[in-house]
């Protein structure tokens, strides 16, 4: 069975006082149902996830108690992608024909709080000040820049691009484009990464309605087809967050594995990708993920960014809605936000941030602690 996306919906990302994460999730589901012309009572299954805003399956209290199959998903920053993959396989297996994937979150202010013991590491790790995701990102990009001649200029350009794209996105949190100087002059949080190179934990919700592709045209004139959806966890030897040690023989990251499996499943290669939304937890992550997802060779990013190849007007637009940097990172929602953006772009409905060139194939990628990645490939 093939899978089609026939409806998309989002709640505005960023701080919304007085609206809980669950309410934002319900809002996104209702918007997606309306977009698809589908009623909740006909939805056969749902997968949903949230890290901080409650159990997704309690959304039935808001949406309607129909007795449907509703399963919660929890995979760190890859939660949204994992919810989607679960929905994908429900349809490809023939188990169900019409379902929903939803993700939402409402994180408290400040950096993500981490409980090392919940991650299987001793309490000492947090005691001595090692349990911070920001350190991992600083260390990973530090090594990458050293090995592949990437300079701070590239880190700044990624942030300039994503905040600029966010200023064109009415749904984004950060709608003010930041200048090169503002970003390059912001305080150093985890050398070489400065404050305005990081996304912040935030709020938001996104939802999709999916169906058996054979029935797609009954619902939508412009269905988008999920050519592949893959989740992979880390292999021994890959450099992951919250690792008190690493092996000296490095293995490819879960992103590399998920990416390769997704291309194989879709029967295409990176050269066929017209537009991509890839995890930009911070500037360095977007840069490294470009090569880990096969979109360029290690080190090419510096020239690509100088030439503007990843701008909305460029050869390979990346993070056209502003990414995690401009939208914030509500963990449960981000993977689905990326898919919504690809759908909007492929449908030609992205408004001021519409990519001008002809689009056929889009790509989404998320990466989450403690080391897993979800990738989808979409086509119209």
């Amino acid at each position, binding site marked *: 069975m093939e899978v089609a996306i026939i409806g998309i919906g989002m709640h505005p990302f960023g701080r919304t006082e007085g609206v809980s994460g669950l309410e934002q999730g319900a809002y996104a589901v209702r918007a997606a149902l309306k977009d698809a012309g589908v009623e909740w009572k006909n939805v056969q299954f749902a997968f949903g996830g949230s890290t901080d805003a409650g159990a997704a399956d309690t959304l039935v209290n808001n949406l309607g108690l129909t007795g449907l199959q509703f399963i919660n998903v929890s995979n760190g920053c890859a939660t949204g992608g994992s919810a989607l993959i679960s929905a994908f396989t429900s349809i490809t297996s023939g188990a169900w024909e019409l379902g929903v994937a939803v993700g939402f979150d409402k994180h408290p202010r*400040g*950096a993500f*709080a*981490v*409980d*090392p013991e919940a991650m299987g590491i*001793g*309490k*000492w790790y*947090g*005691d*001595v*000040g*090692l*349990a*911070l995701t*920001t*350190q991992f990102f*600083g*260390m*990973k990009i*530090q*090594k990458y820049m*050293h090995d592949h001649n990437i300079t701070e200029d590239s880190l700044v350009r990624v942030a300039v691009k994503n905040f600029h794209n966010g200023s064109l996105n009415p749904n984004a949190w950060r709608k003010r484009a930041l200048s090169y100087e503002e970003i390059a*002059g*912001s*305080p*150093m*949080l*985890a*050398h*070489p*990464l*400065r*404050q305005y190179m990081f996304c912040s934990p935030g709020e938001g919700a996104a939802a999709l309605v999916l169906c058996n592709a054979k029935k797609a045209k009954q619902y939508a004139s412009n269905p988008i087809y999920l050519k592949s959806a893959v989740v992979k966890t880390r292999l*021994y*030897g890959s450099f992951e967050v919250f*690792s*008190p*040690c*690493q*092996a*000296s*023989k490095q293995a490819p990251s879960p992103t590399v594995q998920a990416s390769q499996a997704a291309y194989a499943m879709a029967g295409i290669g990176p050269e066929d990708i017209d537009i991509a939304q890839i995890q930009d937890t911070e500037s360095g992550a977007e840069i490294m993920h470009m090569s880990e997802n096969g979109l360029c060779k290690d080190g090419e990013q510096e020239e690509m960014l100088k030439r503007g190849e990843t701008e909305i007007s460029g050869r390979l637009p990346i993070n056209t809605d502003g990414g995690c940097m401009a939208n914030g990172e509500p963990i449960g929602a981000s993977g689905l936000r990326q898919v919504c953006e690809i759908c909007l772009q492929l449908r030609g409905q992205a408004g001021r941030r519409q990519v001008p060139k002809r689009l056929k194939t889009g790509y989404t990628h998320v990466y989450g602690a403690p080391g897993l990645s979800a990738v989808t490939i979409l086509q119209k």
Partner: protein
Amino acid sequence: MGVYPGIKETGFYQLRHILSYENNRENTSRLKKNYHFKEHAMPNKQIPIQDGLFTWPSDNPRLIGSKCGHCGEVTFPAQKSCAACCFQDSENIELSREGKLWTWTIQGFPPKSPPYARPETPETFVPYGVGYVELPEGVRVETRLTQNDPEKLKIGMTMQLVIEKFAEDDQGNELMSFFFKPVEEGG
């Protein structure tokens, strides 16, 4: 140009100047000497932040890792089973004291407490180095560094293990943890 040019302009945290970790440590040592003069009947105990991370008490402390009897992979901290080959055939080993800096960063803002065991304010916080040191046993250990100046940290430089006081507990005992310091510094 300062190391952290943004701080004075944005007031991100109100530090008047950046203290190096070495200076701060000397200040702490002087305080400790005064404390001993007054409380000479009750010497402070030095307690590891976590049992089993390193040999202690010791004049030549070592990190304690484990080596898999089946595939030979080395892990830190010590584990009973091997994540590389899934066998449960691991034994504890003491790791070398010197290695190469594989990567590094500087923690630039006070970590949330809990879990951070040192209560800090933006005024008291001193940025600290964090890195991975590759040891001859074929394992890279994540560690705090004694150096926090980005101009003085280079991938590939030789680093040496030191056990130092990290914090104090309620009884005034010193909580000890492991750090790596650059060898070229001369102490």
